[in-house]
């Protein structure tokens, strides 16, 4: 199997398949000897060169995280042979990025207008929940393409609030 993987914004190409008693693994062209077992759903034990790694997987607000020991990495995986991937993945900085509500609440303020230019980390709108105000920030530099949740709208966790191109 061939995979295009992005870890914390950095791209890797992984060739991986099961072979005999183990795995055949090539990362960015480099062959690596690995031993891997799934301990339980979402938990892997990987041995590389005698070093042992426990990897936990979780999904939060449409992002996948892999934790190696105590360190968190954002992970995306694509099969480059699929039609979808050849059209270009929306998961890189060049495509539109959606902003999601992190929890149920109400949009109390929209700070930026549609078609306005935005920087990475710039506050786009404010969601209020449990008496606290939460700024929703742009994940990238670009243009605020569309505001999906208007001021005054009630939102649920995972709802799309806006799209930045």
């Amino acid at each position, binding site marked *: 199997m061939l995979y295009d993987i992005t*870890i914390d914004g950095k791209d890797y190409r992984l060739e991986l398949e099961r072979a005999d008693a183990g795995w055949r693994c090539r990362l960015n062209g480099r062959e690596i000897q690995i031993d891997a077992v799934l301990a339980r759903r979402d938990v892997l034990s990987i041995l590389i060169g005698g070093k042992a790694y426990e990897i936990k997987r979780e999904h939060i607000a449409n992002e*996948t995280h892999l934790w190696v020991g105590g360190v968190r990495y954002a992970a995306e*995986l694509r099969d480059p042979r699929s039609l*979808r991937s050849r*059209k270009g993945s929306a998961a890189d900085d060049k495509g539109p990025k959606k902003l999601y509500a*992190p*929890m149920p609440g109400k949009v109390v303020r929209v700070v930026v207008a549609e078609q306005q230019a935005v920087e990475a980390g710039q506050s786009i709108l404010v969601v209020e*929940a449990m008496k606290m105000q*939460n700024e929703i920030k742009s994940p990238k530099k670009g243009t605020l393409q569309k505001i999906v949740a208007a001021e005054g709208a009630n939102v649920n*966790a995972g709802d799309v609030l806006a799209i930045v191109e």
Partner: protein
Amino acid sequence: MFKKILIANRGEIAVRVIRACRELGITSVAIYSDVDRASLHVRKADEAYHIGAPAAAESYLNMAKILDVAKRSGADAIHPGYGFLSENAKFARACGGAGVKFIGPSPVSMEMMGSKTRARQEMEKVGVPFVPGTSRGLESPEQAEQVAARIGYPVMLKAAAGGGGKGMRLVHEPGELRPALEAAQSEAERAFGDREVYVEKAIVNPRHIEMQVLADEYGNTVYLGERECSIQRRHQKVLEEAPSPIVDPDMRRRMGEVAVRVAKAAGYTNAGTVEFLVDRDKNFYFLEMNTRLQVEHPVTELITGLDLVHLQIRIAAGEKLPFGQEDIRIRGHAIECRIYAEDPDNNYFPSPGRITLLLSPSGPGIRRDSGMYEGWTVPVDYDPLLAKLIGYGTDRGQAISRLTRALYEYFVGGIKTNISLFRRILTDADFQAGKVDTGYLDRLLKSKAPEVMGENAEVAAIAAGIFAILDPASVVGNGNLSPNPGNKTVGGVAVSGWKKAGRFEALD
């Protein structure tokens, strides 16, 4: 001894009390609101009754409904836990009226200590040292200005009925006083229904050190050692330890004797805590008394070897304290972290949701008081305390290393938690040296977080591929992933959920 106890609470403390009941052979009765049906405390209890809608006023604060369940279930006692109705004198009285024993102090002691101004007045009578200021609510802005000028700035305005940092204002200069007074009074009115505000000298970066007391219903009162609770964020405790790194046996004895004097002056029975502020010169001042069992009671249990909830139940059942002050020994050191469903990268915003993976630590010196389990959805309606993790060792250094090790093992997947905050605190030089005060955590959080070295990105990349082959997951609905019920194939090629995630992104 009681046959059946109703636990008027939820979450980790309800589980804790239910465990004590089981150990004592007492039937436990749980109550739950709509969103707590699948909670851990309901599963662990012997009986459980639905009490209403999620809002606390409809459920855990609803005295009539709770007393009705007590009646229907035949409970002969109620344990209120902490928070909710635990310091509500009206409820304690209503229990008495219903013939159900309230496990805690009398309504009269609660009322005396519940008002901070009244507590100050009573303590003045018995010569308890406290922070200079007023013992009565301020009657006018002019009076406030006079008192503040007398005791010297900076001063702290505080709500008499207050707690949790509400209705408090720190005032540095005379010009700030009037607006601060108005703001504190309005906030107190909104939060507690009581505008009364008093003023105290503000001690710069004090330590918050509290003393556990225990009294039976025959006048026997003891102190069980202190807890250092200075590590706070927005006046909420986050990490506590016992004993305090700066209290020696002589100071412990002096503070303990004052705490016992306070408890006796209040006619106090059962478990309670006397809070002190301690200045740089180790002078201690009475702050207030909490007339309930506290969240952080485990650290005291570990260093004394005593079970406070067992003792609460036995005292309420009319037993005498089975030991005297001279029998109490402090041994070792314990540190507790409060694990909350909060996002440390987003100002500790509450972060409810479904826990998809839970790996819980154990091993030497580790105690875990938890209300969560894998697969549970943390409700948005209540305080997001998930669990308390406590490390115990022969000395403070060992307690720190055990707790650090346990935090490394702790994994809560699917929601954000404040676990990373504790790693930061426990590895901090000032914390390790015991140099803490109530300003400590704000200072630590303002300083730059140490760079997390991401040297295992390649391992993560390989793991991503292995998960795709061994443990694919599918995307459902609002983007939450759930396990793939069966590996699907398209044209003979296994379709992994990860690919579907990519498709989901590309289409929009």
